[in-house]
């Protein structure tokens, strides 16, 4: 039995697709011969988390981290950091209705096209 079949799927299909199909930074590093331990989006993610805690305090750090801990041992347990941090953040934001899943899926399609445009 593969480990995938034992994994609890994410309740958000968009995030489940990223979890099952997304390529991890460690694998990309191996393929491209890169040694940087962090992906280029790591500090941007950190800044997003901080900005959500500041100002209007849409998502307080303590709540986000507590939910990340929970999700990191259940739904996203098979993922390393910071991949599981970005999934947990999106998960927490959708649970709270700060963003909705359809919008996120649409935006991801747009962003993917934009970042890959030449």
């Amino acid at each position, binding site marked *: 039995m593969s480990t995938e079949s034992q994994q609890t799927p994410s309740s958000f299909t968009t995030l489940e697709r990223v979890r099952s199909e997304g*390529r991890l930074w460690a694998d990309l590093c191996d393929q491209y011969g890169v040694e940087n331990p962090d992906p280029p989006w790591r500090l941007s993610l950190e800044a997003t988390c901080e900005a959500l805690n500041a*100002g209007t305090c849409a998502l307080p750090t303590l709540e986000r981290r507590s939910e990340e801990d929970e999700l990191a041992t259940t739904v996203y347990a098979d993922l390393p950091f910071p991949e599981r941090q970005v999934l947990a953040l999106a998960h927490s934001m959708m649970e709270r209705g700060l963003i909705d899943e359809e919008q*996120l899926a649409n935006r991801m399609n747009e962003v993917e096209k934009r970042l890959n445009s030449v």
Partner: protein
Amino acid sequence: MAEEHSHKAAPMVDEVSDYEVLETAVRELAIEKGLFSAEDHRRFAEYAHSLGPLPAARLVAKAWKDPEFKKLALEDGIKASLEVGVDWINDAPTGFGTPSDYTDLRVLEDTPQVKHVVVCTLCSCYPRPILGHSPEWYRTPNYRRRLVRWPRQVLSEFGLQLPADMDIRVEDSNQKCRFLVLPMQPEGTEDWSEEELAQIVTRDCMIGVALPHPDRKADDPRPVHPAVHPVEHHDH
């Protein structure tokens, strides 16, 4: 004719991953919904990029060299941080303290009888303005849960074996208060300059899971030890 380049550019990952796309999409939607602005995000990102362990290493080295400064560091960590170029209140992009919250910095002085070590049992609070980003193991529930119950065992897993009669004091960080360990100055470094001393004060020494050593500098290459019992005739 252009001269041939003597060195190649560092390799880069030439592929956009789904995780990078997700990070960008979440950020853009949050900005469009007015949860924060693109300028807020840029300032937080710039701040995060500028953080590193060096100011904390200088604080420790300065405290070793200067008893007056050490007194200040133990009394008021925030004020002492100013002398190594870190302003906890005004440098932060919030303009009123560190990201996450305004915090107090307590400097914990190790003695021959007491070793300090820092954890955040609730999440991953860390003195980022002066010590940079926390290592991944500091965030793990495993470290956070076990350090407070079995500190001696956890420290030994980091390779730090402490005498049985030495007390271990674990301090639990939170959103209001962060901690930095002031380890004991290693023997044989009494004549060193502040710059030389700062080089041996690594991040882990200031979390408390390691001790500074005169032969081990923060920017040393990672040590490689030959196996004591190498596997022989291994065909796989």
